[in-house]
């Protein structure tokens, strides 16, 4: 049978379309495999925020778990080494691979959330100090990897991020005082980690000395921020059986000395939120609104910082009105 050319044309176009679709599907499949090692449905990314650290400088990891599949997936809603949902592995040429262990371990309930296709969960947490001491404890080049373990998944099913590279340099020995292993250096490390802790007097004294002697060091900014954040909140000290109330005047003095732009974004937001809380307490609501607006701009809609804003409003409900006002403004 000989077909009329006019009837053959749609058939040719149909075949071309089929081939094109198959080609595109194959390309998409290849791309997915490359971008999601260990999983066809979840992709884990790790961002250390910087590729260079001074010895003794606090470091924070941002992890993001994205559903790159076509179906909803149940995942842990809080990605944190404390809950065991995330594991951070570190290796370097000078220190074999080890796993970051937090100081505290947390057991939670209702830990899962359904992640729709394209959605993600993200979190920021400190990785510089834990149960094994300082993570980056000597100068050198480190590779950091995040691993997410799906519920009940075997080791082969863990989802790993690409490695992030971090180079640690000894800044004229400034940070070495935090890594001596003395009780004062351990206390100072915990104070930087928690940014709280009235009981850590020896550690606070060590950090005060560091700020005085090396005000230009980036470590001084982390210490000043920790002092400010500690004072901006009340503190339950069970060792003496008393609450130390928030003391916002000196807290603001510390905040004003911090070179905020040198800090990781996570800490910049924390500082602005604490400033806003303190300014409300100091009856300076207009300035509090400015601080909240700065925090909002730094956040830029990123979901990993949502909990920080909720915490600030929980501690100072008046900030909620400020958020509403900022949100409604053009």
């Amino acid at each position, binding site marked *: 049978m000989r077909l009329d050319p006019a009837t053959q044309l749609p058939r040719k176009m149909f075949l071309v379309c089929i081939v094109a679709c198959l080609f595109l599907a194959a390309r998409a499949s290849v791309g997915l495999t490359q971008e999601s090692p260990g999983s066809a449905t979840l992709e884990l990314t790790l961002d250390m925020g910087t590729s260079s650290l001074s010895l003794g400088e606090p470091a924070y990891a941002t992890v993001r778990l994205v559903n790159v599949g076509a179906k909803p997936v149940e995942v842990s809603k809080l990605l944190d080494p404390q809950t065991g949902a995330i594991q951070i592995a570190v290796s370097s040429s000078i220190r074999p691979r080890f*796993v970051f262990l937090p*100081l505290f371990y947390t*057991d939670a309930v209702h830990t899962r959330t359904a992640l729709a296709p394209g959605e993600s969960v993200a979190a920021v947490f400190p990785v510089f100090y834990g149960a*094994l001491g300082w993570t980056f404890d000597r100068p050198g080049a480190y590779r950091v990897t995040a691993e997410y373990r799906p519920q009940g998944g075997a080791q082969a099913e863990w989802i790993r991020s690409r490695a992030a590279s971090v180079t640690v340099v000894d800044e004229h020995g400034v940070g070495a005082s935090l890594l001596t292993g003395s009780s004062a250096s351990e206390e100072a490390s915990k104070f930087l980690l928690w940014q709280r802790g009235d009981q850590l007097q020896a550690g606070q004294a060590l950090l005060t000395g560091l700020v005085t002697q090396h005000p230009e060091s980036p470590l001084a900014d982390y210490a000043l921020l920790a002092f400010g954040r500690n004072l901006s909140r009340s503190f339950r000290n069970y060792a003496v059986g008393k609450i130390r109330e928030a003391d916002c005047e000196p807290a603001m003095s510390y905040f004003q000395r911090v070179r905020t732009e040198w800090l990781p974004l996570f800490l910049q937001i924390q500082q602005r939120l604490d400033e806003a809380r303190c300014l409300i307490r100091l009856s300076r609501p207009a300035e509090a609104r400015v601080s909240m607006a700065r925090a909002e701009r730094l956040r830029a809609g990123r979901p990993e910082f949502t909990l920080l804003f909720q915490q600030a409003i929980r501690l100072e409900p008046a900030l909620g009105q400020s958020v509403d006002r900022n949100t409604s403004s053009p």
Partner: protein
Amino acid sequence: MFTPSFRVLLSIVVPVFACLLVSCVSLEFDRMTGTTFPPAQTVNGQAVTLGTVFNDAGISLDVEEDDTAIQPLNIAQDECISDAELSTLENGHRHLSLFPASACPFAFCNTYHLYGAVVDHYGEVLDVCVPEFILGKMWQGHTRSAFAVFYRANTIRTDGAAYFRTTAHEIGHAFNLHHSDGDGTSIMTQSDDLTGDPVYRFSEQSRDHLANHPGQCKFPGAVAAAPFTWVINDHAAWAHPQEELTITDCQ
């Protein structure tokens, strides 16, 4: 039958000799005012306590209910207790040493120490207060020698069975047991992962760890203790934290 002085002598000598034969763990257990200790459970007409749960797995756990009137130190708008504040709780109220004490010079017959507290607050995570989310914490990551249960959480306050199970679970972590040691219903199974009615019993994998691994791999506060997750046998799914120290002791 015995004279009072002989009874006193017996009460001292028997525990000492018992600990000379096997290692014991003393749990110093405190609570805040307004809370209770986890209630004993009844299974098949028999009372199940923290002591019996661990005894069933071959661990001699002596629970000493100590301070029952710690003031919660409530702060308006701040219902969560931070890790730094938990640390002061341990510093201020723990009497037992962090490390083992025994007249026996060998690792197999030490008395190890663990501190626990029931706090009338919620727990923090990621530097943030998330009410009703945290049930318990275990800390001193290296020595695994302290834990807290968060009584403000509705699950703990209103469900005695869950409260009891959470407490045994946190103590299990202090013994270097992990969620991967659960089998769907046993103590180390997380609440979200239960596949049946929870039982007050450790899984076979947990029991193997508690029975057969060396002291520094399991006892809280052991001298040169393996940090949490150091055990790399089947029961610990997470990788070895310091792989250069591929110790076979804990396998």
